[in-house]
């Protein structure tokens, strides 16, 4: 069983807290992606799971076993490094064989397993080459083969795609997911690339400054970001976040933004009503806004990016902040400096508390009056929803 549990794990390097009270459960055969900007603690978390760093406090379990005190050698995990970390003096065959030889697997068994792993990654023709004679993509596959050859309980991957060129990265992404499905093992995958996280993960865990911000299925995290950090980090182009103030008109709750007013949907509206304060940050995904002469918010086009399959119209609001509108490619791109109006779908408006950054909506507003001073990850019930 490849279940992984982080139980209140903290790691400090001197004065720096790299990972702060991380509690996270990865289900058996789950593909979990730890995502966050550089320095957020995701790699440290992975290295603690591998046994390459010792937690300052807390426990880590793999399967049914608490491994906090178990040496890396004995943890039954395999890791793919960003640099691949192949043994440069060994042939591809020897590289793949190395974990088997270390564990004294008999020769004929070894030959069979190496052949299997090589076949799984299309390396049969390269077995006698040295790593220096391979391309980046081939090296990456050797590193994967070396990891899968002895069927560990858990695979750890530390930015395995970031040294590949863009095209190969997209292709390998799909191959990795396919491989994981075939092998039926648990994968903990670290990346700073939210696209990788969204496309590959069963669940993603977003980290920032050592703190776990949100865990959930990609679609869930995208649709209901727990706080401003997640809202801005997940999604490309990122969510527009604009400061505004609450107003009431004949029974409906709305938000005054620079350049116009937006209504709030029911869930967010309910939470804002219960909170009873005026200040607010509004979040709108670029695809939930359209340029419309009837729209409520005035803006000026700063630049239009035509991507081929869609367009990003980056507008400037009255206070100078930027607001991106995504539109289909058959729309005519507005010129720079043109005055436009933006219509925002009220049901898709996210509301956040400006002090804590926490999401305001009916389910998270269960404990009203809770101080605005804490920026904690969502309750564990939320994070363990998907298994």
């Amino acid at each position, binding site marked *: 069983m490849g279940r992984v549990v982080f139980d209140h794990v903290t790691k400090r390097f001197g004065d720096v807290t790299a990972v702060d009270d991380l509690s996270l459960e990865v289900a058996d055969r789950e593909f979990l992606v730890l995502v966050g900007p550089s320095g957020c603690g995701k790699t440290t978390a992975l290295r603690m799971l*591998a*046994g*390459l760093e010792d937690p300052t406090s807390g426990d880590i379990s793999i399967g049914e076993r608490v491994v906090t005190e178990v040496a*890396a*050698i004995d*943890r039954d*995990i*395999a*890791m793919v*490094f*960003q*640099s691949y*970390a*192949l*043994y*440069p*003096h060994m042939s591809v065959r020897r590289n793949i064989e*190395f*974990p088997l030889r*270390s*564990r004294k697997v008999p020769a004929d068994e070894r030959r069979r397993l190496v052949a299997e792993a090589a076949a799984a990654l299309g390396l049969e023709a390269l077995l006698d080459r040295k*790593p*220096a004679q391979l391309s980046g993509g081939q090296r990456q596959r050797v590193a994967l083969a*070396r990891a899968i050859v*002895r069927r560990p309980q858990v695979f750890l991957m530390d930015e395995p795609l970031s040294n590949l060129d863009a095209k190969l990265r997209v292709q390998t992404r799909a191959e990795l997911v396919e491989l994981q499905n075939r092998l039926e093992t648990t994968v903990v995958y670290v990346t700073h690339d939210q696209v990788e996280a969204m496309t590959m993960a069963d669940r993603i865990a977003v980290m920032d400054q050592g703190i776990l911000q949100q865990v959930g299925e990609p679609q869930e995290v995208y649709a209901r970001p727990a706080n401003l950090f997640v809202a801005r980090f997940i999604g490309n182009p990122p969510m527009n976040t604009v400061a505004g103030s609450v107003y009431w008109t004949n029974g409906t709750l709305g938000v005054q933004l620079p350049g116009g007013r937006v209504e709030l949907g029911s869930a967010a509206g309910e939470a804002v009503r219960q909170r009873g304060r005026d200040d607010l940050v509004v979040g709108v995904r670029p695809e939930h806004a359209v340029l419309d002469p009837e729209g409520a918010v005035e803006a000026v086009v700063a630049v239009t990016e035509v991507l081929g399959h869609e367009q990003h119209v980056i507008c400037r609001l009255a206070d100078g902040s930027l607001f991106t509108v995504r539109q289909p490619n058959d729309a005519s791109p507005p010129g720079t400096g043109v005055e436009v109006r933006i219509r925002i779908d009220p049901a898709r408006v996210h509301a956040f508390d400006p002090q804590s950054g926490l999401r305001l909506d009916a389910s998270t507003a269960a404990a009203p009056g809770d101080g605005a001073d804490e920026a904690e990850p969502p309750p564990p019930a939320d994070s363990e929803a998907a298994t």
Partner: protein
Amino acid sequence: MTAVRTRKAQKRREALLGYALVAPALLVFGIFVFYPFAKNFKLAFYRDPLFGRGGAKYVGWDQINDVLTSGDFKHSLWTTVLFALMTVPAGIFLGMALAVAAHQRLRGIGIYRTIFASTVASSVAVASVIFGTLFNPNIGWLPWMGFNPKPPLLQNPDWALPSVALVSIWQSIGLSFIVMSAGLQAIPDEVMEAAQLDGARPWRRFWRVTVPLLSPTIFFAIVVGSIFAFQAFAQVDLLTKGGPLDRTNVLTYNIFTTLRERQDEGQAAVLSIALFGVTLLLTLFQMRILERRVHYAS
């Protein structure tokens, strides 16, 4: 046409300037290296008279033949080879062991690194005096500890050469440690971590990963260490003067006594050419044979 000509003229001017700048260095090398080197070959063909005065006589290849076939030369060469075999592998092994031990992120490890590297800062002469005192049968530390063979170590035909070798090994550890440490630093941490996660125990990691990746460094240390060993002189001069029974009479010391005590320039010249030749051949041999087993990172 004129453009071509001026460019040619400019090239000539640059060449002249180049020669002028090299000239001083060339002069110094000429006087202290090239001329003595060439003169040595000339001396080898002239035999000094056995007794008294009179100029040296041209004898062609006779003297070279005599010296190279003499038992004295063969004994010296064998002693030198023994000395190299005693010092080079041990120095490299100890330097590597200390480098591996010090290659950790531990508080205060820097102090140990400094201690391990420190012998490089002491001269061979200082090391020899220290060890000479330690070995001294009357006031030495070893006899005081109860290890006091008769005859004393440095006068003992069986122990003299190993004792001199011990001093050399001690002296060479510092450089060996520094070179090996640099080699270890060049091995990516991730490769060692991968080996760990691949289930390789420390011994296997050392032999299957560290040593192969360190092989260019080890090769360098073997070549340089061998050359140093073949040129060792001060420790012999200070500790044993080639004795007892010529057991420590290495080639360099033999050249020295031939010239200083027997005043035989011709024979000394032949011996020094022989030393040069042997060192050259050894290095070429190492480069041809050993280097095949070296893995250079891409």
